[in-house]
């Protein structure tokens, strides 16, 4: 594996990862004048080289996903793939009776905001509650399905708390209902850690993006099962089977596929390594710091995600102190780090009170994370929490902050 060393301790890999050097090296071959720089749509030898590179990348991506290369559309981001999936399906069904969409309350904003937009165009959307770990219960999904249900969009792994949904089981519920429902999953956080083989998942549409798996920013992928009809949201020269016009980002796509291949090759060892580090981090912080809650499922979670709430203190203050004192870069679900005045919708959906959401910190580990990094967090965080608790006038009892109704 590529070894890199950072001055900072980067524990925000769910936000984005660096681009792997091997990926960068590969991409460089598809940019400059002595490389493959043509437009895949040009009928000349320069263009054909680019088309060949694109076709080859698409086939290699299809090999990993276990699908046909014609079922893969490259886009500009995970958000764009999600928009294409949801809006594209909706647009193709404007005159159909099926105008119901089901999603969950803990989805990424790309899904939630798109659903809200679709509501304004006449679609009905059900936002499923999740359990205390952030997981969608199959029976809840089953109960929400109606004859009008067109599409279900449930994320594979949650970006904030890392909980992993049982996608095959959720797909099965849809199939067995006999309601002819399409299933899309946002697998942006899952790729690189979990099984993304379409045959095993059974989904009709799946979103992945490159910038979460050591690929470049600005490239996404949408798997669309053969026979599923979408209308494009970007119209023009008809690239990507007419579903995503615009000259293909050949270097980005080649880099994305290279990153995907590396991630698949290194998956087993990396999952094992990160799971150990994650559990070591969670265990030590919970032992060394009083009044801490783990957000998300204890086992059924991404190998790289540890999300904890520190009671009586505010997340942004924790983050800033960690950053300043030890160069630790994490993220928080506190309102002060969001653009709105609301704390994380995900932590709230777990049934946690607002106080707990404000004090949540997400550590997401990655390839650069070492045991020494985690030891540093374990070393400095207890003192930081103690110091902030000294400043805080709040002193809640644990009974007051445990999940509502538990």
């Amino acid at each position: 594996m590529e070894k890199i060393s950072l001055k900072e301790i980067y524990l925000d890999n769910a936000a984005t990862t660096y681009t792997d050097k091997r990926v960068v090296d590969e991409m460089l071959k598809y940019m400059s004048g002595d490389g493959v720089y043509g437009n895949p749509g040009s009928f000349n030898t320069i263009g054909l080289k680019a088309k060949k590179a694109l076709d080859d990348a698409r086939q290699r991506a299809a090999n990993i996903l276990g699908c046909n290369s014609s079922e893969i559309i490259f886009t500009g981001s995970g958000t764009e793939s999600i928009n294409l999936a949801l809006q594209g399906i909706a647009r193709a069904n404007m005159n159909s009776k099926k105008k119901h969409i089901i999603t969950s309350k803990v989805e990424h904003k790309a899904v939630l905001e798109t659903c809200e937009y679709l509501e304004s165009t006449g679609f009905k959307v059900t936002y499923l509650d999740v359990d205390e770990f952030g997981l969608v219960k199959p029976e809840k999904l089953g109960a929400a399905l109606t004859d009008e249900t067109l599409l279900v969009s449930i994320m594979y792994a949650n970006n904030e708390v890392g909980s992993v949904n049982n996608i095959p089981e959720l797909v099965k519920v849809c199939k067995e209902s006999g309601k002819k429902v399409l299933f899309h999953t946002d697998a942006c956080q899952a790729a690189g850690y979990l099984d993304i083989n379409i045959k095993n998942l059974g989904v009709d549409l799946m979103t992945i993006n490159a910038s979460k798996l050591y690929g470049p920013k600005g490239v996404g992928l949408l798997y669309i099962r053969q026979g599923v009809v979408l209308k494009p949201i970007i119209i023009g020269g008809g690239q990507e089977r007419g579903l995503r016009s615009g000259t293909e980002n050949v270097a980005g796509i080649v880099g994305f596929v290279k990153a995907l291949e590396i991630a698949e090759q290194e998956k087993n060892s990396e999952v094992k390594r990160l799971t150990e580090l994650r559990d070591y981090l969670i265990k030590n912080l919970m032992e060394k710091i009083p009044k801490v809650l783990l957000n998300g499922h204890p086992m059924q979670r991404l190998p790289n995600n540890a999300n904890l709430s520190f009671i009586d203190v505010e997340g942004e203050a924790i983050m800033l102190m960690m950053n300043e004192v030890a160069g630790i870069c994490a993220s928080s679900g506190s309102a002060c780090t969001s653009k709105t005045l609301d704390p994380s919708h995900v932590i709230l959906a777990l049934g946690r009170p607002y106080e707990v959401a404000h004090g949540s910190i997400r550590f997401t580990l990655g390839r650069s994370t070492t045991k020494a990094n985690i030891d540093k967090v374990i070393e400095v965080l207890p003192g930081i929490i103690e110091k902030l608790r000294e400043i805080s006038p709040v002193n809640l009892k644990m009974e007051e902050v445990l999940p509502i109704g538990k």
Partner: protein
Amino acid sequence: MKMEKEEMIDDELSSVNELKVIPMRHKDVEAKVKAGKVEEWFYTDIVKDHFFNPRNLLRSDDDLKKFAHDGYGSVGAAACGDKMDMWIKIDKENDKIIGCLFKTFGCGSAIASTSMLTVMITENGGMLIEQALKIKPQDIVKRLGDLPQRKFHCSVLGDKSLRQAINDYFRRTGQNDRIVIEGAQVVDMALKITDKDIEEAVLDGAHDFEAVQKKTKVGVHDKSCIPKVKELIEFYKQKYYGG
């Protein structure tokens, strides 16, 4: 690194002073500051300094007993993301605030701005109550050397809890005629949106009706309130950004 001048306290108030100067700097930060290695941050050096070394922080019940406060105010809740408690000591003869202790639940700028506020009202022998009542969030922000626009709302609780503490002092000393009531008034009857909500929205960076409506949904159902809301926006814009 630019440092704020430490507050000056009269000799006879040295017992109050004692509570104020307990160093609070984390040893790692201390070393970094000394070596001039504190790197560029999202916040100014003054904000950072007050965040890492809050002045006038109440540390224990014992501190509070020694302090023997004349007024107490508390605003916010942990559920809202900010809570500020403030205790003040008054020089009754001169109607001045001569001591202040605080505790804050909140982000870096909330902690720094309360700390700075306590310095502002106690420095140079203390601030007249009349003056202290006029302190606005932007006065604190100015002393902090600015805050990012979207962190502005984090500085609004300090002055509110201070006014509450002053009212508490008035109440305790029978000066009921001096109590300033800050009641919220409902402007949007349909959604029960108050002038305080409009104030919050303006503080949070919404500077015209459309932006305030986006944040509060004011006037969506009760359209009759729109002229009044526009008036309030102008008022709060003037109050917080105009002066």
